[in-house]
């Protein structure tokens, strides 16, 4: 697809996203919000996994950090929601750095285990916080979790899904544009070079350690932002929302959409949330179908949905050109 056609397609989608939801009703809009929020988190994972080639089974942990960070800022420090969003992003980036740095030397399966450990450990630590005897034992709200207040613009309180949808959409648009910019930059090129050939990257001057650590920070930033929005969306923040399954769900979004594409991350989030909604009506056994869907995607969906569409378009264009020639 050419850049202009892609921009046109993006604008059409954006127009639909603005105009259609008022007609959808509360629940469907609520689901739309979830799609947008997960899309933001999944963009971060696309940077790390798709472009950096690093496996993370711990993305939900970073989202959890963002959700608790934003909630605590709002509840304890009286920070407004609007300030909590960038702050949660920053916290996510810091925790991402704190993960990326010690895991610098780990590759492939080792990195998978390390991030897996993080994803499983973080909820455990939060759940058992009072046992550590550090700080306020009720810091994370115990079994009840935290209830962050609703955001407001002046006197307009964001307490309906439709209002929150426009917030999510605005953040998502910024997140997408930012990700495209980051990934098309020299930094993004460095990251892809590192993934495909660490020797070539070093031999041409890429600071591989640095780009690797910062890709964790980018993933963490997006996850933190996602978490802050999710905190409001869920209403109550508890560790059960950030299980290992959520980490795997994020991987699924990235794989289904197409690991290397920002649009793919969004498509993947929409597809997975839609699947989740559809399955919830049919069965209580989500993990079975999640597992099967992810397995099929890994085995057969090379390049994801977006990759397949792109390949189809490329073939069509080649055929056009061949016919004109």
């Amino acid at each position, binding site marked *: 697809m050419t850049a202009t056609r892609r921009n046109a397609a993006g604008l059409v989608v954006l127009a639909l996203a603005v105009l259609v939801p008022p007609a959808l009703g509360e629940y469907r809009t609520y689901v739309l919000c979830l799609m947008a929020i997960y899309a933001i988190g999944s963009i971060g994972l696309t940077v790390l*996994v798709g472009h950096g*080639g690093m*496996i993370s*089974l711990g993305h939900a942990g970073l989202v959890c950090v963002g959700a608790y960070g934003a909630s605590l800022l709002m509840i304890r420090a009286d920070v407004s929601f609007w300030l909590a969003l960038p702050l949660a992003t920053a916290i996510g980036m810091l925790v991402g750095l704190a993960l990326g740095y*010690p*895991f610098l*030397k*780990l*590759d*492939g*399966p*080792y990195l*998978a*285990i*390390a991030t*897996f*450990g*993080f994803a*499983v*450990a973080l909820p*455990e*630590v939060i759940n*058992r916080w*009072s*046992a*550590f005897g550090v700080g306020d034992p009720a810091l994370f709200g115990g079994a009840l979790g935290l209830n962050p207040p609703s955001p407001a613009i002046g006197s307009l309180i964001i307490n309906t899904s439709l209002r929150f949808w426009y917030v999510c959409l605005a953040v998502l648009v910024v997140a997408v544009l930012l990700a495209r910019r980051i990934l098309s930059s020299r930094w993004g090129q460095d990251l892809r070079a590192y993934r495909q050939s*660490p*020797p070539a990257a070093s031999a041409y001057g890429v600071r591989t350690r640095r780009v690797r650590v910062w890709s964790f920070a980018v993933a963490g930033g997006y996850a933190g932002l996602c978490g802050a929005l999710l905190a409001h969306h869920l209403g109550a923040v508890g560790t059960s929302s950030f299980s*290992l*399954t959520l980490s*795997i769900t994020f*991987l699924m979004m990235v*794989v289904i959409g197409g690991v290397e594409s920002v649009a793919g991350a969004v498509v993947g989030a929409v597809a997975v949330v839609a699947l989740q909604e559809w399955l919830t009506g049919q069965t209580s*056994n*989500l*993990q*079975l*179908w*999640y*597992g*099967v869907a*992810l*397995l099929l995607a*890994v*085995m*057969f969906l*090379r390049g994801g949905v977006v990759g397949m569409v792109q390949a189809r378009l490329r073939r069509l264009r080649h055929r056009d050109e061949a016919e004109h020639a």
Partner: protein
Amino acid sequence: MMQYVASGLVSGGIYATMAIGIVLIYRASGVINFAHGELATFGTFVVFACWSAGLPLPLALLIGLLVGAVASPCIEAFVLSGLRRRTHLTEVMATVALFLALNGLTLAVFGEETHEFPALVTGPPIEAFGLVMSRQSILVLVVVAGLTLIMAAMFRFTRLGAAMRAVSESRESAELAGLPVRRIVWSVWAVAGMAGVLAGVLIAPIVYLNVNMMIDVLTKALAGAVVGGLTSVSGAITAGLLLGVGESLVAGYVSTQLATPFVFLVLVLALVVRPQGLFGSAPKVKL
């Protein structure tokens, strides 16, 4: 103190049994099998179903082990070999997907109820050296000791063991030497699958049989495998046992709440400070 060590050895023994499977599979295929625990759960449920249907427990156990021995190589033969591009990323995602799918399958077939699982040996606890231990606990220790000996003997004295070693050192040269590499790899997965089901059957009487019973065990077994070096069976056994003892001591002297976080601390420290583990060889440096 000794009581804590003894009970730690029991849970450590189960982690070790699981860790053996993880290490064997990693050596054979270079894959961390995140589905290993769920396979064990499934096999344990099969044992339970057979036993509930009236079969004697040993026969039920045999059937369960057989299920493990057949299902485990299928992961390698049908899923991993079916990947179009076999990279660390796709391999991990595939086993993670299987983790979910198998968990769901067990749920679909056997339901979400928690069951009391029959101990393989029954009778009053045994008291010796000032320790009180249930017969099941002693059985766990015996099984782990037995497995350790069997593994050592297999690697040292049997042709299959030698072939396994050759394959894990270099698949290419094993192929060049005319070894039936695929069959050997499948056998390794089969042995690992049986060890997994055995671990499930051993822990089920202690934690009760449930769809999610192995998730925690798998995490700790992974920690054990990593601390042991991922490539060393004896390392995994030692590390698994040590981890169990450490966890039990933390639970006893510090707080039961902190036992699990302790395991994660060990896992992360091991990965960061010494990724090759206590007993593993240093990972090859890529140019």
